[in-house]
């Protein structure tokens, strides 16, 4: 028996695989290593990744780095505005444990306490290659899900 959740998940995520539209919630540290990803050096459009200006058009929310108390509220709001299926990619060590700012009074320590995170990319900041690997892993994950659902 394949549980219903997985089936729904596979159907939803299956739509993601064709091309990923990204909404950037740039938070400083994310910006510098995402710029080469967007621009000519790594050029993510080769893989069908496009940056959109509106969360309502986006499939993936990239949270680039630490979130302060003030900005996390906006993140949650943006996340809620995104239509299903959606995935969240969290860049940087600071989204995992607080990173450099583990003892700062104004930054949150773990992003998944606030919104569901699909994939964490460690690094301070993560290299552009790591971002691509993360995208690849989302694809793989979707394929895996599809296989599991079909196989039974």
């Amino acid at each position, binding site marked *: 028996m394949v549980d219903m959740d997985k089936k729904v998940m596979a159907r939803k995520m299956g739509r993601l695989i064709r091309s990923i539209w990204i909404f950037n919630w740039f938070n400083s540290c994310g910006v510098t290593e995402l710029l080469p990803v967007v621009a000519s050096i790594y050029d993510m459009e080769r893989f069908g990744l496009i940056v959109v200006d509106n969360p309502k058009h986006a499939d993936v929310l990239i949270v680039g780095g630490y979130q302060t108390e*003030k900005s996390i509220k906006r993140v949650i709001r943006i996340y809620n505005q995104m239509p299903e299926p959606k995935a969240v990619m969290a860049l940087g060590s600071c989204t995992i444990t*607080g990173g450099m700012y583990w*003892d700062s009074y104004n930054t949150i320590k773990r992003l998944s306490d606030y919104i569901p995170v699909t994939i964490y990319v460690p690094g301070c900041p993560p290299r552009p290659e790591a971002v691509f690997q993360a995208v690849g892993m989302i694809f793989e994950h979707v394929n895996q899900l599809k296989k599991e659902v079909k196989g039974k």
Partner: protein
Amino acid sequence: MSWEEIIKDYNPTIQRERRIWVNIPKDKVYDILQNLKNEGFEHLSSLSVTDWIDEGKFEITYHLWSYKFKVLLTVKTKIDREEAKIKSIYPIYDRSAWIHEREMHELFGIEFIGNPDLSPLFLEDWNEKPPFRKDFDWREYVRSKYYNKENEREKAYWEVWLK
């Protein structure tokens, strides 16, 4: 009156070339800054506050730069911690002073009398003490807000790192 004469009575220290420090009593600061501005110290490089909690004082430092003389003059003054009020230098340095004072008001809770707008700058819905004061227990605040004592992984923050 040249700028050297303005600060002559207050024993300025020359740290090195282009760095001069001077301590001035609280009630004279405004006039002296006004005179210094007229003499050519046009650029307010920074405005800072140091919390000397053992003395019970706040030290306010004005870092002035003169495009004419190429000197960085730091004017320092001490005010009581209990009565943290000082006349704003907004009329002298205009908006550049306004924004520094607004920041210091938020982080140290110092009242700048005469500043038109001291609304919060960085922090949203902040109800605690001004966070940069020395008596605000920063580490206690962080660990109780973000780290769970019961959690096995986060115990170390309580017992070792944020002690």
